[in-house]
């Protein structure tokens, strides 16, 4: 039972970390920064929280596989839709994990890739977030708890706010970086 508790807790924490990472990525790309919150803080948090997310995600997956009640095929950690238990919902989680793993690996090797290649892969970040949310809402043991729904709603609001703000900036005529006009 302890394993399943850990699966539930780390799953939700991983999703919150993913939300913050995505929001920081969006605000960083939108060039948010001030003298009190330098841009390197956003960039550093984006990087370090994403690595923390991988840690929680690893525990989430390990405890899920080790739990004897569900007896999920270990291959389901990497290959989507091969789990006997809740094939579809677990598969969504696998897809989100594969996407996040690809993002982290390409980002760690970023200086060895071309900027275009890295960036093309990094756009996947946007896909991993809704897939992870869908996975949590679909199969989360606690997904129906009001406070957890509220937490998920807050995560959705954070990402929507960051995206709306970014898109509004993109829609404006391009300002010269650092300019005052």
């Amino acid at each position, binding site marked *: 039972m302890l394993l399943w508790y850990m699966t539930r807790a780390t799953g939700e924490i991983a999703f919150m970390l993913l939300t913050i990472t995505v929001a920081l990525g969006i605000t*960083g*790309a939108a*060039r948010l*920064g001030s003298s009190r919150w*330098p*841009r*390197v803080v956003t*960039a550093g948090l984006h990087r370090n929280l994403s690595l923390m997310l991988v840690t929680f995600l690893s525990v989430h997956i390990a405890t899920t596989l080790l739990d004897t009640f569900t007896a999920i095929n270990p291959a389901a950690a990497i290959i989507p839709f091969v789990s006997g238990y809740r094939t579809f919902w677990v598969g969504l989680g696998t897809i989100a994990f594969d996407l996040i793993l690809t993002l982290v690996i390409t980002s760690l090797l*970023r*200086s060895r890739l071309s*900027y275009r290649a*890295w960036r093309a892969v990094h756009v996947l970040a946007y896909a991993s977030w809704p897939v992870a949310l869908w996975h949590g809402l679909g199969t989360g043991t606690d997904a129906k708890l009001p406070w957890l729904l509220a937490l998920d709603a807050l995560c959705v609001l954070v990402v929507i706010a960051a995206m709306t703000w970014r898109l509004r900036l993109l829609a404006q005529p391009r300002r*010269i*970086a*650092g*300019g005052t006009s």
Partner: protein
Amino acid sequence: MTMKLHVDPIACAGHGLCAELLPEAIELDEWGYPMLAASVPARLRGHARRAVSACPALALRLTGNDDRGEGGPARAQ
């Protein structure tokens, strides 16, 4: 061997993270693009590397880095 920073002016998008991380050698011009010092002293190697890896556009390079050759060959400016 002296270390030198190079910026790819086409790739640089003026994010300005490099100047936040390495103000000793990088200043931003009035449009937010970096102006680089002629050379980087050895004591700032670690900071220079961080500035290079932080560049969101991968536009900054460090050359003359004596170990591991992370800076790669000098680019024509």
